[in-house]
């Protein structure tokens, strides 16, 4: 097809405009506010939403004047009958358009958690800007907005601080649990497993924590600390479990990556054992209609320190350490299970999911799993193997005692 030059240019212009259509959704970096944290509280009948936004000038490495004269992050608060309403109304506070695709953490206030989180979760999972790479936590004894107002040491953006803190403690300590939106929704939708979220507390002087003074000190006046987990029945929080119990849940759910435990020596000293690998296997047997739940754990550990006088060169010592480790882990899990059964009455261990998977026929006869769980027999069989004992053989105590 041969066209006149003028027609060609005309066509080019027309076609050019088509390629600009993508610019409808353009959001320039200097026109958006990057939301890193979101807090949800309930005030009367309305939701109070706090969003924490990175203060771009303070966190950029270049052109930083006066060593942080401005706060590294800004937290805006707005109330609304629904979450989206509060967000939209936020435009009267924020000079820039909010962008949620870099969200690091969502904090639920304890009151909203106790009243139910179904309503706020809908918007969070329906909105297309939200991703699945942020964690969800519950503020313990505080409102979400208090958490998001506190200055954090080291990583000056509190939400980032909270995110990495949770990831690292989940990885090394197992006394917390990082839970993502998808996981939470699955837990809430699944019959045989109740949801759990790690708790966050503000320690120390909250008044000072809200000022920059907090970050000027070597020992921060206030800090944000993870502690225990909030337990949910359907979408309502019904109570707290402590750190050891959270660890027990992690053991059973096979989500312990590494952790550390202590056992006592016969002479009163202590040995620290660091778990390097843990694999759990839940087997369900049916005794008529009541399930018998067997949890098999295979744990590999290293000896981190020996603060007592034991002869580490003997095989029998290692066997003894293995046995103590097994008792300790079994003990933690047994205690957690009996407390959860007795006081909370919901299955946060996910045994019901295993019953469903392994005994589907029996599962369909069960009407209320939590009721069955409260009376189910759970046996824990830990099996511990010691792999390494570090770089020295005998304990310092063994080497130095009675030789001066």
């Amino acid at each position: 097809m041969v066209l006149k030059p003028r027609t060609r240019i005309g066509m080019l212009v027309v076609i050019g405009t088509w390629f600009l259509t993508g610019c409808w959704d353009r959001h320039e970096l200097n026109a958006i506010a990057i939301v890193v944290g979101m807090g949800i509280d309930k005030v009367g009948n309305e939701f109070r939403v706090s969003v924490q936004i990175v203060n771009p000038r303070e966190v950029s490495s270049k052109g930083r004047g006066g060593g942080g004269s401005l706060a590294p992050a800004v937290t805006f608060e707005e109330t609304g009958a629904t979450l989206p309403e509060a967000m939209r109304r936020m435009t009267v506070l924020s000079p820039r358009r909010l962008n949620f695709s870099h969200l690091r953490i969502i904090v639920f206030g304890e009151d909203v958690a106790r009243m139910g989180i179904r309503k706020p979760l809908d918007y969070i999972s329906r909105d297309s800007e939200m991703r699945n790479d942020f964690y969800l936590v519950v503020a313990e004894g505080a409102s979400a907005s208090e958490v998001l107002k506190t200055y954090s040491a080291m990583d000056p953006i509190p939400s980032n601080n909270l995110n990495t803190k949770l990831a690292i403690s989940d990885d090394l300590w197992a006394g917390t649990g990082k839970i993502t939106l998808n996981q939470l929704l699955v837990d809430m939708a699944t019959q045989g497993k109740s949801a759990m979220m790690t708790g966050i507390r503000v320690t120390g002087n909250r008044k000072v924590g809200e000022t920059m003074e907090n970050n000027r000190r070597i020992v921060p006046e206030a800090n944000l600390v993870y502690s225990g987990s909030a337990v949910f029945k359907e979408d309502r929080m019904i109570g707290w479990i402590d750190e050891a119990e959270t660890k027990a849940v992690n053991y059973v759910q096979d989500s312990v990556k590494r952790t550390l435990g202590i056992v006592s020596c016969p002479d009163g000293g202590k040995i620290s054992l660091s778990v390097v690998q843990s694999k759990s296997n839940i087997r369900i047997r049916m005794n008529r209609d009541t399930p018998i739940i067997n949890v098999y754990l295979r744990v590999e550990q290293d000896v981190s320190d020996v603060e007592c006088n034991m002869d580490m060169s003997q095989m029998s010592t290692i066997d003894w350490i293995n046995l103590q480790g097994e008792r300790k882990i079994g003990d933690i899990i047994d205690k957690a299970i009996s407390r959860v059964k007795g006081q909370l009455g919901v299955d946060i261990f996910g045994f019901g999911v295993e019953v469903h998977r392994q005994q589907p026929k029996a599962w369909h006869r069960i009407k209320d799993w939590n009721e069955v769980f409260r009376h189910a027999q759970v046996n824990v069989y830990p099996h511990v193997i010691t792999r390494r004992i570090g770089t020295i053989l005998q304990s310092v105590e063994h080497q130095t005692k009675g030789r001066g």
Partner: protein
Amino acid sequence: MFSSQPITNRSFTIMVIFFMIGTSILIAPNALALNAKQDAWLSCLLGVVINLLLVWLYVVLGERHPEQTLVGYSEKLLGKWIGKFVGLLFALFCYLLASLMVGDMGYFLTTQALVETPIEYLQMLFVVSIVVAIREGLQVYSRVVEIFFPWILLLFLVLIVSLAPQFDLDKLKPVLEFGMAPVMKGSFSFFSLQEMVVLLMLYPFITKGKGRGRGFIIGTLIGGIVLVVTTMGSIVVLDYTQTANNFFPTYVMAKNISIGQFLERLEGMMMLIWILSIFVKVAITFHAAIIGIAQVFRIDEKILIWPLAIGMIVLSLMCYTNVIYVQHFLSLIWTPFASVFMLVIPLILLGVSLLRKSASVG
């Protein structure tokens, strides 16, 4: 519009793979999980088997009339008027299908990525590129498809491999919890989403010989494997509850990729796979509609392209009032409706063709 040179078997096979992946990769897991829960992948597998059987039927039919399209031999077999009527219905089916997919594309982009862009402009841009492809002819766009193919394959493999750490295979248990009924129900609504019958309109333009039919079947099989793997991936990453409640579960699945905190935000790859495969599928389907209408009315194909392309946008906006409407349409009406064109018409044509042959022999 066609050069005399036929399409090679290789590029035909690749076109079949794209056609099979088509829209299904993004929307099928949702409906499958809604019906079959954790057995969605079994449902998908069964749907692929049904498709293979259908394709076998198409190959038998196509090989009996190696020089003609479906519209062509329906006129020959069923007589001038009935044949033309059936041919026209078939062409309109292709046309409706193409515009539904344009609607799918627009809704996906405006829901997940370009929230503020008016859907009309996205669809216009998309349709213009389709028109360009079709004006250039089957020869040209079949080569384009060959160029796309290694990229799609690579992106798909990268997606699956980088999601592998998050696979929780226990989520597939218990297998067949509610028996075969929900699995069959899922596959019943699934198999009609691939519409392989459309390719019979292009069949005569492929290099003749054994490789043609084999390519059709192998392409369906490979595309089917991609779909089964994607469905399974969606279940083991997101759980069936979330697969069933997301409109575009595979896109959400790709959003979950996170390797070492730096290999993240790869969902664009999923979008690219989907846009490329839906582009190929819409191009082929729209082309089939044009060939069909042109053959029924004995007019030049070229005159039809622009008006029908514009009509396709309008039709897609009319069909796609909202996403719930389309879901209802797909789950309740589409399978029986599409089965008429995917199963009933080819079977009738094959039956008549066999009868005529035996009559002429006898």
